[in-house]
């Protein structure tokens, strides 16, 4: 059943984990991926991805330092908290392009817990709120100002709409997306995203946190190139 040769072969193959396994496979002059080797290789890939996801999640849900600029009270309004002390300047600089910005309703989406029907009913109360698409029941309003197509995904923990919420840095690699604000009032969540023309395209992610800095959800903003 369980041959020593198989054990030895696999041990040779996976010595040092996935990287070694890959090196062995790549360096082999002849195909070495029998079922055992393939299974081990796949298993280490699954593990590495699993661990990487955990590491990434831990990073994203790291408790913000109290009083840090991103959560400071120096914001001028709900739109600019992510700029911290730079908020007023950014608001002034962004003024002209904001005037020509348009809502990209066809490219926005929200993903929040619950069903479609209740959200549609709630949405019907806001006939003038152009550019907001809904896919769930939690009362979330998304406002986007951008000259490019932008997709916004909001995932919130159940009950988060009744907490004081804010956005931690929404970032992609080292680049932070300014102009992101999350606020709540009477069980309704408002997410505002303002994208500057100079902002790089890509997918920006960041946690939605409560007043104590605890993660209560995630915000994903996808900015297209044009």
């Amino acid at each position, binding site marked *: 059943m*369980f041959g020593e040769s198989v054990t030895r072969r696999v*041990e040779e193959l996976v010595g040092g*984990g996935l990287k070694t396994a890959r090196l062995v496979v790549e360096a082999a002059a002849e195909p070495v991926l029998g079922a*055992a080797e393939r*299974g081990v290789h796949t*298993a280490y890939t699954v593990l590495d991805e*699993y*661990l990487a996801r955990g590491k990434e999640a831990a990073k994203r849900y790291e408790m913000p330092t109290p009083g840090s600029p991103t959560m400071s009270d120096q914001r001028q309004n709900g739109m600019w908290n992510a700029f911290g002390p730079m908020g007023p300047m950014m608001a002034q600089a962004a003024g002209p392009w904001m005037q020509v910005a348009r809502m990209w309703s066809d490219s926005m989406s929200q993903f929040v817990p619950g069903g479609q029907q209740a959200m549609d009913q709630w949405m019907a109360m806001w006939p003038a709120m152009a550019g907001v698409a809904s896919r769930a029941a939690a009362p979330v309003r998304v406002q986007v100002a951008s000259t490019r197509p932008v997709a916004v995904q909001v995932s919130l923990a159940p009950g988060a709409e009744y907490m004081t919420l804010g956005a931690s840095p929404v970032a992609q690699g080292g680049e932070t997306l300014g102009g992101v604000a999350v606020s709540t009032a009477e069980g309704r969540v408002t997410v505002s995203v303002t994208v500057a023309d100079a902002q790089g395209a890509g997918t920006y992610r960041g946690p939605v946190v409560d007043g104590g800095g605890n993660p209560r959800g995630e915000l994903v903003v996808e900015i297209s190139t044009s």
Partner: protein
Amino acid sequence: MIATGCATDGALVPSVLKEYGDAARRMLFEYLPSSEPRRYLYDLLADYPRRGGRAFRPSLCMATTRAFGGSPDMALRTAVSIELVHNAMLIHDDIEDESDERRGRPTMHKEHGVPISINVGDMLSMLAMRPLLDNQHLLGGSLALRIVEETERMARESAEGQAMELGWRRDNPQDVTEHDYLEMVLKKTCWLATIHPSRAGALIGTRGAIDPDRFLRFGFLIGAAFQIQDDLLNLVGDARSYGKELGGDIREGKRTLMLIQLFQRATPEERRRLHRFLGRPRTRRTDAEVAWVRARMDHYGCIDDARQVAHGLAGAATHEFARVYGALPDSRDKAFIEALPRWVLTRS
């Protein structure tokens, strides 16, 4: 006090399983209330635990504690909690899988109905909290709370894995890969069967002075080998010792490695037929169709392939054992854990 004796080679694993399993089972029954309503609840709590089982999970927890220098008594309540959660999940799994047999007898919901069985499973899950709370007298509040957190993590991972499998069964996708399967097994099987018992056991043995993530690789690899072997036994095992309906996984539409391989190797026409078969309710899947699926698995070497994967994973688990446990002093418990990858593949 739990005695520790000596056994060698093939006798070691069964010997340790019996010793630690008996200890855990004895204490488990002490946690089962004997008040009313007995007929519809409390008498049924003991049903699955009384049917036997190898007590693999509690034994691994206790052996790990001892291998890391603790006393197995320190891990006993955690081991009981693991066994209670395991039995609770078995009851719910049997309902979700529409299984007919468990450990050689009709499943609980076949004997007592679905509503009562769900409630019994719920109660077993709740009861699993009690030994963890009692841990604080033995382990101290901080370590006891840590074990509760570990248990919560395990329960979450298990439910996520179960959700993946149930989703596949409901939506009948044709593109589930070996990678998807192993990810599902990591969550559904390995966290409860091997990762959690190892992590909790080591935390207890070291009084919380170890990074439990060290046990992810070993736990995953041996747990995945365990699951694939379990799925193989469903096809080629001995009906009496297996305790469940042979071929039942095919009838249930369970996404095993063999079925995934068959999807990948079958002709387009065979794939369509397989898809139609899996798209029907379980009660409308005929014996002839189950036999056809099984024959195609043989034809394409899916069973041999899966067996090789299980062997490979067990070999890799042996490799990871050396990395995690290698520096520990030799002991019966260390030898038991080292012998598990081989035992996983040779059990019937």
